[in-house]
């Protein structure tokens, strides 16, 4: 049950998108988000959707997996849509009690929902096609200029990769502890809210203890392999831009310019 979390999961593959440099993909996602928030009318949204669909097709992401990633956020999307629909001033189409549906509201709602869905789908595509290690490597490399400002870039990237690495481990651990306490007659599904919160204690205490134990063991393992931070550290996998990366970045820039021009004209 806890294992069915799809959002942010990496699916190994060998597609043009999988092969792109992680830095390219990170930059493209930033460009994509900026473009998405600049989009105004049907034409600019259509261009964004075309870019997204092309990326999906190239990375062979299945529509079913995409839908599963969106599922946990359906409620948020719905609420956003409904709020926008009824709380935008404009030409009323339809009135009921205190609710007034306006033409502008309807338009806003459709765009807002589109924007959220495309935002999630785009970022999902990033984690879908990039392994967590490559992702943090790429982030570290992109943030490198900040080192001049004494910003701990390497430490941040290391913390991120450790956190990502331990998500599945901790999920598994939680499952196991839950089963063990259930075997001792613990009940997590019935009772009042306070009772249920109390019932979590037998899970949280062992989970925290094991998290601290793991952190300790990991620190010892890292130190015994002479880890001493990012200074002078070399990499097994060097990140290198290839022709495909330049092409992808150029395409991204084109789409961004296109969207901005279209939006300027109100399209």
């Amino acid at each position, binding site marked *: 049950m806890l294992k069915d979390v799809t959002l942010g999961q990496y699916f190994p593959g060998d597609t043009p998108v999988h092969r792109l440099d992680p830095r390219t993909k990170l930059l493209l996602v930033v460009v994509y988000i900026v473009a998405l928030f600049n989009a105004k009318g049907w034409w600019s949204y259509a261009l964004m959707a075309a870019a997204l669909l092309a990326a999906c097709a190239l990375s062979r992401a299945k529509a079913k997996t995409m839908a599963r990633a969106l599922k946990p956020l359906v409620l948020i999307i719905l609420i956003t849509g409904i709020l926008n629909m009824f709380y935008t001033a404009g030409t009323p189409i339809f009135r009921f009690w205190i609710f007034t549906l306006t033409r502008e509201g309807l338009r806003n709602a459709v765009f807002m929902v589109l924007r959220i869905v495309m935002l999630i789908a785009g970022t999902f595509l990033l984690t879908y096609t990039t392994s967590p290690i490559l992702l943090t490597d790429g982030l570290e490399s992109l943030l490198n200029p900040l080192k001049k400002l004494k910003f701990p870039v390497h430490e941040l990237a290391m913390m991120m990769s450790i956190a990502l690495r331990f998500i599945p481990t901790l999920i598994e651990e939680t499952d*196991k*502890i839950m*089963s*063990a*306490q*259930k*075997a*001792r*007659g*613990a*009940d997590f599904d019935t009772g009042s809210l306070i009772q249920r919160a109390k019932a979590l*204690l*037998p899970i949280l*205490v*062992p989970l925290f*203890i*094991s998290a601290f134990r793991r952190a300790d063991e990991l620190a010892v393992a890292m130190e015994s392999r002479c880890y001493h931070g990012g200074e002078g550290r070399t990499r097994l996998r060097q990140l290198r831009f290839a022709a495909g990366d330049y092409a992808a970045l150029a395409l991204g820039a084109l789409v961004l310019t296109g969207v901005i021009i279209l939006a300027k004209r109100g399209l």
Partner: protein
Amino acid sequence: MNESPILKTEKLCHVYSAGTPFETAALRDVDLEIRRGELVAVIGHTGSGKSTLIQHLNGLMKPTSGRVLFEGADIGASKQATKNARCKVGLVFQYPEYQLFEETVYKDIAFGPRNMRLSADDVDVRVREAARFVGIGAELLGRSPFELSGGQKRRIAIAGVIAMLPQVLILDEPMAGLDPAGRDGIMENILGYHEETGAAVVVVTHSMEDAARNAERMIVMSRGRIVMDGAPGEIFSRGDELSPIGLDVPVMTRLADRLRAMGVPVKGSVYTVEQARDAVLALKGGGGAC
């Protein structure tokens, strides 16, 4: 004695991640009967389905198809039935010391009985009884379980399940990661509970020696199926079938077989070093120190 089994599975199947590319069948048509007061060892290679099987026996996992019957009643029939079964069928997980959470040893052992809604007096009796079974002295009951040694923690965790007085006690690799003295101690505790209360005990292990030394009956699993079921002697006589599924007869049994093949008349069944010693001494002519 033709008594009805206390625990029984009928055509038990379990499929993980059904409908995805990761679909795997962990259990296939498992028919198993555990009789009252039996001491059973379940053996199998990693991934043979042992752990999945035992989690079905107390209703923690729901079968994909098939049923689990406790005293003839389906434990998955209702929520209440499942809850009852969890109290009657005690399950000790692998490395159970990682599930301790209370401030004191006493409170931790009391967790199970309190969940059974017993009175404070009954809980007290059960906690002290369970602590005695696992050899934890009364002076330790007020201590924090996190200050104790690994072996003691494991005993306390086992006591936490024993305190529910299960009629079937299932343990997943109870000796894993302990030193030899700790291993023997835990096994003695388990056997003590088995003998005093007459509860059936199921021990999951991948050590043939441990299984042969203690169990009356061995169940061998491979790829989600029960492939052999019988007394240790019967199982070991089919040694050539064991190696393809990643298992092996105990070293001393192999030694005795080799000796017999060489024409030395080794008598009786030999699984452990002690039995091997006795058999060899008997051959030398009635024992006596050498």
